[in-house]
């Protein structure tokens, strides 16, 4: 099935980096959800470990498959993901005021996470097959804008503002690389900016309220959204150079941090382990991005390059936005930290993305 030439092109550095980050994440989830009463390995970190297993299994399966399979079924997968997104408001489960999950037997799946992958595949297919030679004109972008806009709208309506923004940025990155004229890029950017306030008005009222309560968690907090940003900055800053030690972060252990095992896991990490560990962690993410970019750069064909780029952009954007949000550089949008934050769907879809990256790299010299 998998020949030695393929294995020879396996990127062990990338795999190792991802595994280290994932395991660090499970440790941090453990710390963030640790309670004196339950002690030991609490439910969530154990579940995250299972999800890591499922994700690695999926990743391995992808190694055996030629990624061109996804080129063929790119649109189909995209429509499947749209179907799941549409199912969410119909049968989905409401958690913390947002309807994001679908229940499949014992699994709770967040279709938005898989929509990211599906969008990457669909856009890559479009630009590598359908689109004319760049530079592209505005009217060539009608379909890609729909490909981005429809899932982004569905996700925003859940409401999951963070994921919607990510879909837009992600699609934008692929458009940039697929090649746009400067004028087109400018028009798109201006159009996007002029739509933003309309979107905000659209979100006003109960939805805005719901968006805010998503970040508050169960105990709706009266002190406002600024409170979380402040508490997060206090957590990060109070970690200092050396950190307060594992399980010793007062901000996280005493629940001053909101959503500490998901969106604010980085703050737990920074508080308990300090600046040096933070620098090391960010270095790992950089390594991951560089290796990923390399794969895209050396890819055999445009589809592979765009898929690899999409996966890397998705990971990089989420990391940057999450850390920026945690450190108070940007307003709080709910985005988890890739590979680390608690969340099965996200972890599995990100590992599948890594699987695609590896698959693309392994097959860069293969002839069919």
């Amino acid at each position, binding site marked *: 099935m998998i020949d030695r030439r393929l294995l020879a092109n396996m990127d062990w550095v990338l795999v190792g980096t991802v595994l280290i980050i994932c395991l660090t994440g499970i440790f941090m989830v453990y710390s963030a959800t640790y309670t004196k009463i339950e002690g030991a390995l609490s439910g969530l970190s154990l579940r995250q470990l299972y999800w890591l297993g499922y994700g690695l299994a999926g990743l391995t399966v992808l190694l055996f498959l030629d990624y061109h399979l996804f080129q063929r079924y790119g649109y189909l997968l995209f429509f499947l993901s749209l179907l799941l997104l549409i199912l969410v408001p119909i049968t989905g489960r409401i958690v913390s005021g947002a309807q994001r999950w679908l229940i499949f037997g014992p699994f709770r799946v967040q279709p938005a996470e898989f929509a990211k992958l599906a969008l990457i595949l669909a856009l890559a297919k479009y630009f590598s097959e359908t689109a*004319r030679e760049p530079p592209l004109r505005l009217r060539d972008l009608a379909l890609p804008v729909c490909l981005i806009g429809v899932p982004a709208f569905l996700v925003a309506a859940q409401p999951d503002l963070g994921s919607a923004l990510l879909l837009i940025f992600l699609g934008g990155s692929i458009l940039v*690389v697929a090649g746009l004229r400067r004028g087109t890029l400018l028009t798109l950017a201006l159009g996007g900016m002029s739509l933003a306030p309309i979107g905000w008005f659209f979100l006003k009222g109960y939805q805005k309220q719901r968006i805010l309560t998503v970040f508050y968690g169960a105990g709706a907090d009266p002190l406002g959204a600024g409170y979380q940003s402040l508490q997060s900055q206090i957590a990060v800053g109070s970690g200092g150079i050396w950190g307060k030690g594992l399980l010793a972060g007062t901000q996280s252990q005493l629940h001053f941090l909101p959503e500490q095992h998901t969106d604010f896991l980085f703050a737990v990490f920074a508080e308990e382990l300090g600046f040096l560990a933070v620098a090391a962690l960010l270095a790992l993410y950089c390594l991951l991005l560089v290796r990923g970019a390399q794969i895209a750069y050396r890819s055999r064909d445009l589809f592979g390059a765009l898929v690899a780029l999409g996966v890397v952009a998705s990971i990089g954007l989420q990391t940057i936005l999450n850390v920026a949000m945690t450190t108070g550089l940007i307003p709080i949008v709910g985005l988890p930290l890739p590979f680390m934050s608690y969340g099965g769907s996200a972890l599995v879809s990100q590992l599948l993305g890594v699987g695609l990256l590896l698959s693309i790299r392994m097959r860069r010299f293969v002839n069919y």
Partner: protein
Amino acid sequence: MRLGLRKFGQPLPSRVKSGIFFLAVVSLACFGLLMIRLWSLQVIRGEEFHQRSENNRISIQVIPSPRGLILDRKGEVLATSRPAFHLALLPYAVPDLPGTLELLGPRVGLDMEETRARLERANAFKPVVIRHDIPREAVAYLEEHRLQFPGVLLQVEPLRNYPAKVQPAHVLGYVGEVNEAEIRQKDRSYRLGDFIGRQGLERDFEDFLRGVPGRRWVEVDAFGREQRVLKEQPYGPGKNLILTLDASLQEKAESLLGDTVGTIIAVDPRNGEVLAMASQPRFDPNAFAGGISVNAWKELTSDALHPLEDRATRGQYPPGSVFKIAVAAAALQEGAIKEDEELFCPGHLVFGGRTYRDWRPEGHGWVNIHQALVESCDVFFWKVGLRLGIDAIARHARAFGLGDSTGLRDQGEKEGIVPSPEWKLENIGEPWYPGETLSASIGQGYTVVTPIQMAVLISAIANEGTLYEPRLVLQVEEPDGRVIQTFGPKMRGRLPIQPQYIDMIRRGLRGVVNEERGTGSLARIQNIQVAGKTGTAQVIRLRKRHDQKEQETRPRELRDHGWFVAFAPYENATIAVVVLGEHGGLAGGRYAPLAREVIAHHLNMSREEPGSEPASDGEGGHP
């Protein structure tokens, strides 16, 4: 051209490569920015944020310190603290809130509507007190059934408690919750919810009684839930007050007063120690301990008899014939009358074209100063007063401490009035009329005094000339009994009267009780020489006096006050007593039995062990 699958080894177009390169560089630049931000937060401002995270997690709680005890001179407890149990709910921890309230409601007397409203407004993670100071049985029930009531808490707070059956309410005063204005103006060391002395000794000795609250540093989570105690600084309990009061004599005085509106004061004339000080009507200071209800407060403040007023130090009454003691002393000292000089009393005096009537219409006949005191002859003192003049009367009255607060209280004590021509001009704007000197000579007219001033006056006669400041506190002690401060006798001075004249007055007062025509014969005790003086203070001027039936038809506020002041034993007196009946419509002599009872009780108690049968029940007075 359409882009199909690229062939093996065919390189990507360079624009795609440069796009990838561009994005990679932008990403790395973003990471650089993040590192700068993290450096700034964690390294440069790390200390600051560390401090803020500490402030987040540590909450400082105040441990209330119980107030000091107030004990009588023999160690009997007059004021202490008791644990009050407040019923509180921790809403998030109560699984079945309506059911729990249903169960608790009837047992502790909950106002369901109000409780629900309060719980709706509350933070679910902070205890909400739903009922203050629940009864003992409810506490026992909750302790027993603790497991049935998760999230139900009992918060303990020391509350003031006055255990005696009959409290010397006006002496002790009461405590109340401190309000914001008081914290701002007086003392920032108080916190809302703290209790502060509001009246009486509770107020005057607040700084001793209060003690230092303790502090507890507690680690709390974001919801305010306590995690663990980090540090504790124990409270410093309040200091104990040892009073000059004799609780048993106080109780006697209170019960003697009964429903009589007025006051009884007993002082040790040798040093000014107040042995008993009862004022009627009184209030229950326990009602204030946990915060008084609006209704109870309204009832107290709107009562026509003003139960909150301390009549002993704040009531001002004309002294009536008791004032003759001062006039007699002045007259002897100033030479206005000779020791054995007799004046004739026909039962009235015509002065300035008006007829002034003696209380005894048939007159006292020829009387000297001794006889005049014994029989309380008005005409004699009118004549003497005219010889003295108002200025000399006023001067001597002041020498007895009248017209000035006695120093018993730090604040709120009334000063009374010693009228003089200057006083009248200043306060009423009219010149002094000679006829008013007649009124002043027998303690009527503008002259008003407080009962505690009368106690100082009679004490000075009892101890042959020394004015002592009356005192309520003997000493302040630490809870372990170590004495912090002792309050010794405080002399205000000596009467400017020759000893032989004081002696004459003393003999006169002995005669009041013990001689046949004495007005205070009801104070007579077998084997003990009691000396005293009656006084009947008119509230309105009447042509005819001494008509009991007529008094009863008047409105209360127009009825006479009755005074009786006394001391005993005659030689080396150990007790001086003042009895005042406010608007009782009775002559002063009718209050002599009350003084007699107080004296008998005190002398028996001090002679014998407490609890033994009294040697004399005090009978022996003549009607």
